[in-house]
């Protein structure tokens, strides 16, 4: 039988992220402090590194600008505090992300992550009294797909660290975290 002559389809430039597609990425940013009350005095800041893994669990849903898909995963959050004292923090945070897919290669997303966080800042600042804490992060970003499998990401997160009331004082630390990074999909 000769070659089939049904209509020819042009190559689709849109990245095909489907159920089961995994994403690994590395994100880096810089923590900038927010003192939300008069009791907050610490200007904690420093670089943050967040390697992550995600699994896409839905095909694109919805129509129009909000068409998107959900992925869940986790990331390791490492923060190297350089102010007010040199200290470290490391945590593990499950993460959920909604990615808007209406714009093909440019894909905005909203995300939320939270989990346990250990830091040796405790006792060195008035806001935190225990080394065991929780980190909560919520933010948004945009991915630009360089290829069907690789994307650059930039965005913003609000970062909150506190111990959940397990010890006092527990004022918590709040910060902005602008970030950039890349992801690889497979």
């Amino acid at each position, binding site marked *: 039988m*000769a070659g*089939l002559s*049904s209509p020819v389809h042009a190559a689709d430039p849109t990245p095909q992220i489907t*159920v089961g597609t995994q994403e690994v990425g590395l994100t880096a940013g810089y923590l900038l402090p927010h003192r939300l009350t008069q009791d907050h005095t610490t200007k904690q800041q420093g670089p943050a590194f967040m390697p992550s893994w995600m*699994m896409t669990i839905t095909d694109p849903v919805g129509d129009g600008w909000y068409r998107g898909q*959900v992925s869940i995963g986790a990331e390791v959050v490492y923060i190297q505090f350089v102010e007010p004292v040199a200290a470290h923090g490391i945590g593990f945070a499950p993460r959920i992300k909604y990615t808007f897919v209406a714009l093909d290669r440019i894909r905005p997303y909203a995300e939320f992550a939270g989990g346990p966080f250990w830091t040796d800042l405790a006792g060195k600042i008035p806001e935190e009294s225990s080394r065991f804490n929780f980190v909560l992060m919520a933010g948004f970003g945009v991915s630009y797909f360089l290829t069907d499998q690789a994307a650059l990401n930039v965005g913003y997160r609000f970062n909150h660290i506190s111990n959940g009331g397990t010890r006092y004082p527990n004022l918590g630390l709040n910060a902005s975290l602008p970030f950039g990074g890349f992801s690889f999909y497979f």
Partner: protein
Amino acid sequence: MTHHLFRWTLLGLVGLASTTMGCTRWIDVIPSSTLQQESITRVISNDERVPLVMDGFRMMQNGAAQNPSTEIERRILNTVQETRLFSTLVPLGGNISSLGDKVVAARITFDETIDPHSGAAAWKGFVIGASMFLLSPVIELDYDYAAQASLELERWDGQVKRYEARSAGTAHYHLFGATPIMIGELKGQVTEACLTELMDQLVRDTNFYMASNTPLPDSPILSVTVKARPPLRSPVSLSAVPVSTAPAP
């Protein structure tokens, strides 16, 4: 010390269970292509076979028209070819000038229904994440796929016969077992079951498509066995090869 050891052992076991049981997946297909009864077999003379020409191919997904998929068209044609009911298969747009007067025209509709259960998956994903993935072995995610194939064959004298088959399946998986390959496997198995059923129906009407539309003579002329393809689990070959012949018994 013993308490410490017990705690880490327990954590290790929980982690091991999460990563192994959380990776499982399986597929249910109805009707199962592997459970179908033995295919119907007919014998047709080589001279009695006529060409089949693709006259139309429509694809639908969840009720909406789609661009025709070359892959699906090839798969359907290969399945028809494997019945050896027709002498030649001509895809859409193929050259039909030298086929003669007796030609069967085929119009195919392939309707896919996909339900990825996105809402449930999102909520379950949130719960799995909130549990630090500890619930991943016990929370099951599902992906449904159904295929309905309609084959309309018009004989050279204008008589039309219509065949229809449907198959559905569900991929059940845990979070760490999800992969795009799983969805491909589901669609492949469902399509296979659907086309197998369709070809069984087609082969029952073998006599209708014989060039003379009369019973076979007893003379020992070249003939082939006409039957629906047995269920396959391996991917279908996309190549189109000439139909082989064998002497009649």
